[in-house]
């Protein structure tokens, strides 16, 4: 075969492999960063936002669940650890933490370890690697995040249309804030 043609094929294949790996690697990072911007907007970092019930108008994240009341906190641990407190509601509440590359590195629900009654609280302290304070208060679980940026996402099952006011009243007591 013609030498220049072999070189052409080698360049095409090399470019294909490099681009393939680079794009697949970048997809979760780019999408997560866009989602955090869409969800968090400007400035609302390390603070819970309680989204209204999901309808067809919601287009920030694909495949949203209309049966869940979401509370979202965009995490930025670069200035220190963050405290999260989430009062549980029946029949199902979970607090899930996601890294900047989409990994779900922590999850806690209202039914584990004997279960939490309505209104009992999930309490954690989240810190960047190596930044966990020595004095995590009693009753708080210490969670080390793999990346400084990320998301805390609370899901509460909305049993029926009548349940929403009760969940709204309860979730107002949620906390996501820089540890002082």
């Amino acid at each position, binding site marked *: 075969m013609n030498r*220049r043609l072999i070189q*052409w*094929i080698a*360049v*095409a*294949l*090399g*470019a*294909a*492999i*490099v*681009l*393939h*790996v680079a*794009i*697949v*690697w970048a*997809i*979760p990072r780019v*999408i*997560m960063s866009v*989602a955090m911007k869409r969800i968090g907007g400007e400035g609302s970092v390390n603070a819970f936002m309680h989204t209204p019930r*999901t*309808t*067809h108008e*919601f*287009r920030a*994240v*694909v*495949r*949203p*669940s*209309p*049966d869940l009341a979401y509370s979202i906190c965009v995490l930025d641990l670069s200035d220190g650890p963050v405290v999260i407190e989430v009062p549980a509601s029946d*029949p*199902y509440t*979970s607090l*899930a933490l*996601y890294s900047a*590359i*989409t*990994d*779900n*590195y922590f*999850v806690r*629900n209202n*039914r584990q370890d004997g279960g939490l009654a309505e209104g009992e609280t999930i309490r954690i302290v989240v810190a960047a690697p190596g930044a966990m304070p020595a004095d995590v208060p009693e009753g708080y679980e210490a969670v080390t995040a793999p990346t400084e940026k990320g*998301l805390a*996402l609370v*899901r509460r*099952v909305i*049993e*029926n249309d009548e349940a929403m006011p009760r969940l709204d009243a309860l979730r107002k007591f949620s906390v996501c804030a820089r540890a002082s």
Partner: protein
Amino acid sequence: MNRYLYWASALVAGAALAAVSIAWAMTALQGEYRSGPWYTSAVFGSVDADMYTRARVAMFGLLALDRRETMYYTAATDSEGNALSGDCTYRIEGGDLAAHWWSITAYDAASFLIENEQRVYSFSQTTTEREPDGSFVIRVSADPQEKNWLPVKRGESFDMTARFYNPEASIYADPSAAVLPVIVKEGCK
């Protein structure tokens, strides 16, 4: 031929090959488990996810939970394997899913909820009207239906996701053995 054009054509061919191989990896490698028309991947959201799974999760199920917390099964066809269409009426028939709580939601081709006047997007363990024996029938259609009507849009394709919140251990141990409702086409317009 111009030398630059010659090598540029190699790069363009490489880019095209990358695009085709990524599109293939994102779709062909999907759905590791199947129960009837319902597909699931057992690695959604977990930290064991590889590069491809992460990319797929980001594109098709961002912020998913791991399988002990929630399992997601998606059906894009009826039980006979025909693509779901808003021109048809489907009967979803089954019993309670093996989970602490469950729901079944319809999504449009862009993976968003489907606009309808009733603002009904899903049926769940607590909103589904039952038959006397405890089983249920949900009808998915662009036309109004008696009881449990899940509206979709005429002329548009759609799919459905069944969510198992805190599934029974048997479900995540063997996702293919999960019992899910059948999806039967009743007629088309």
